[in-house]
């Protein structure tokens, strides 16, 4: 009957089957697209847009260009080996006078000061002491007299490096690198080289928290997946309970619990285990405890869903084939939970990487993670270029991890097609 219908349809219309299928599918696709369109637009403006903006800011370099346009143009042809010629000095002098008039000199000073400490002083003193446009041919001498820094090559290479429109300056700084006067990439001076440490610390804390979550979450997820429905539902409520309270409240609760006169210390003292209160908070320990507590559900839920899909018959089969319980667990059960372990670990790790409030509240100075510095540069010092660069590096690392995970899971994912 189906055959008859098909041939009948073929005879009446000459359109090939493939095209008719595409036409039929198109309506469906348009409808589906219409359904997701609001979210798509929302995400475009609130998610994709800001990310692109952030990435652009991490390489954008327009301040010096705007404030000192003539200097930038004059330096374009400078090879950077010797001091620039008279023309560049004249351009700078006129640029400084113009900037002083419009009050924009601080913008350029801030940017140049990032690259060379003390540049702000050089610029402000020059602006203060430069009375008028120097006579033609005397600009070099005049500026050099006002501030001897203008007789140094490094001062000029700093301006040239900052003349944009794009720069690797912030990205290099985020990795504790900088360019020397010759333009070669070298390690940043020790007093500025902190970000590698911060990244390493961020990763270390994230890995510790992920490991803790896995160790604590695995048995709970197993229990959830194997208990009879009534009791497992009750347990599930306890797992989800933390979501009912705000993150801030939960973090503050840890302060109450862990501080030196807190519940934990008092109890331990009362039992007689300790004489002196233990230092449980404002250090790495407090950060790990509080973050593990907050992130635990994100580990338990994916684990639970992967374990729920494992039929108890597998373990029985393994036992009947001669595998002792531990062997059966390691060779049959555990491998099937790997997708859940991967998903949970990735989720917790990535969430932990970007954690801000908890380490800021319960961590000491040496426990601040990368997001603390991003927030610092965004809101306190308004060094958006560096904040964006740190964000970009973090984003890149996170994407890499997600990619690696995707590859791993692709090789592992066999359970998906197997559920019968």
């Amino acid at each position, binding site marked *: 009957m189906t055959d008859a219908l098909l041939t009948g349809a073929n005879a009446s219309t000459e359109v090939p089957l493939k095209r008719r299928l595409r036409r039929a599918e198109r309506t469906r696709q348009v409808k589906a697209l219409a359904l997701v369109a609001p979210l798509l637009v929302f995400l475009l403006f609130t998610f994709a847009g800001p990310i692109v903006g952030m990435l652009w800011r991490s390489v954008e370099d327009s301040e010096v260009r705007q404030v000192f346009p003539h200097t930038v143009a004059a330096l374009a042809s400078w090879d950077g080996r010797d001091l620039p010629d008279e023309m560049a000095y004249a351009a700078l002098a006129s640029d400084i006078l113009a900037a002083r008039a419009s009050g924009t000199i601080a913008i350029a000073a801030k940017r140049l000061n990032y690259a060379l400490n003390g540049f702000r002083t050089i610029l402000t003193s020059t602006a203060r002491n430069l009375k008028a446009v120097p006579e033609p041919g005397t600009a070099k001498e005049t500026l050099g007299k006002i501030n001897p820094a203008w007789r140094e090559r490094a001062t000029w290479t700093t301006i040239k490096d900052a003349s944009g429109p794009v720069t690797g300056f912030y990205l290099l700084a985020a990795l504790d690198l900088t360019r020397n006067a010759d333009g070669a990439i070298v390690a940043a001076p020790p007093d500025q080289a902190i970000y590698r440490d911060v990244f390493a610390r961020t990763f270390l804390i994230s890995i510790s928290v992920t490991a803790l979550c896995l160790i604590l979450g695995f048995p709970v997820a197993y229990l959830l997946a194997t208990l009879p429905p009534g009791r497992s539902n009750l347990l599930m409520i306890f797992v989800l309970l933390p979501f009912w309270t705000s993150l801030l409240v939960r973090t503050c609760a840890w302060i109450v619990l862990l501080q030196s006169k807190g519940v934990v210390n008092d109890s331990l003292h009362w039992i007689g285990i300790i004489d002196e209160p233990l230092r449980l908070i404002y250090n790495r320990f407090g950060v790990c405890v509080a973050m593990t507590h907050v992130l635990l559900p994100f580990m338990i839920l994916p684990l639970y869903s992967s374990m729920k899909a494992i039929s108890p018959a597998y373990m*029985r089969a393994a036992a*009947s*084939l*001669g595998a002792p319980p531990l062997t059966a667990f390691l060779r049959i059960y555990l491998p099937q939970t790997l997708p859940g372990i991967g998903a949970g670990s990735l989720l917790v790790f990535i969430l932990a990487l970007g954690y801000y409030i908890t380490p800021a509240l319960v961590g000491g100075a040496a426990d601040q993670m990368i997001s603390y510095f991003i927030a610092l540069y965004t809101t306190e010092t308004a060094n958006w270029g560096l904040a964006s660069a740190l964000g970009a590096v973090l984003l890149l690392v996170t994407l890499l991890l997600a990619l690696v995970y995707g590859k791993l899971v692709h090789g592992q994912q066999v359970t998906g097609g197997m559920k019968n």
Partner: protein
Amino acid sequence: MEAGMVTPAPALVRFSGIQKTYDGEHLVVKNLDLEIKKGEFITLLGPSGSGKTTTLMMLAGFEVPTHGEIYLADRPIKNVPPHKRDIGMVFQNYALFPHLTIAENIAFPLSVRKIKKAEAQERVGAALRMIKMESLAHRRPGQLSGGQQQRVALARALVFNPQLVLMDEPLGALDKRLREQMQLEIKQLHETMGITIVYVTHDQSEALTMSDRIAVFNDGIVQQIDTPDSLYENPVNSFVAHFIGENNVLAGTVETIENEYCRVALAGGGAVTARAVNVSRAGASTSLSVRPERISIVPDGTSSDGPNRLPAKVQSTIYLGDHALAVLDVAGNSEFMVKLQPVAHHSLRQGESVSITFRPEDCLALDPV
């Protein structure tokens, strides 16, 4: 099969006074005494909830008897964990490990026994050849059809030469044709390898096809253990008669008992002579059991030449290809089936009055239903 019956093989498995309850109120297995001989294919047959699967699970070690003891090769195994029992098992949904290939699945019992790689490889190869799936060794279970998965599960349960193989409704998920084919394959494996198989099913035709002996379970009690033909020919009670094969039931009261035979007055009128299988005394009520293929239909008015002749009215006829069924109204039973030759049903008209006859030895007087 015949050889096994002539020389009594030693009992490999012995259930002794086994009871099992899950809730402390109802016994799922009431009082089980059962011996399974070496090399035997025994089927535990019964409706769901009859205790057959529980019995199998106790033998496998996944359930612990509440009372009694199970002996495997004369060794009590109640407290032996499943992985030390050396019993192969084929599960209802195969339970093939989804993250391992077919070859790895079959190699699993060998590798947990720390058998050397070379020998394990050889045995896996032989097992794959046995199920004719050498070319699929590196596929994963999810890529196989139900029948292929079934074969792999079988090979995996056999590859380590267990002294006993358990099968828990292994063919339940397959379609009819494939199921029949697999029945024959399993039967063949049993005969060539000489293994002992305990098979659980609720499908009586499957049990009849494959088994040396069948234990019919109902209500946690083994109703009868016997060879397929004995079960069919000589059921000990109405449950077995009804569960194994097609069966017509006529209710009646015993009038007289004489040696092995009794005269029964039917509730719907008339009287017949039947074999007194499960009746105690004259005056007791009874259910008569007659198989559809042991009955003849004779036109009304022809002379009778036996003690069992009853009037009947044709309700309908059903054509089934290799045979036909006449549905009759006999002594108050309006679903009385008679098996006919394929085209014989054409001569019967609906509503026609006929007579049926059957031999006294084909009519069993059993306990009342």
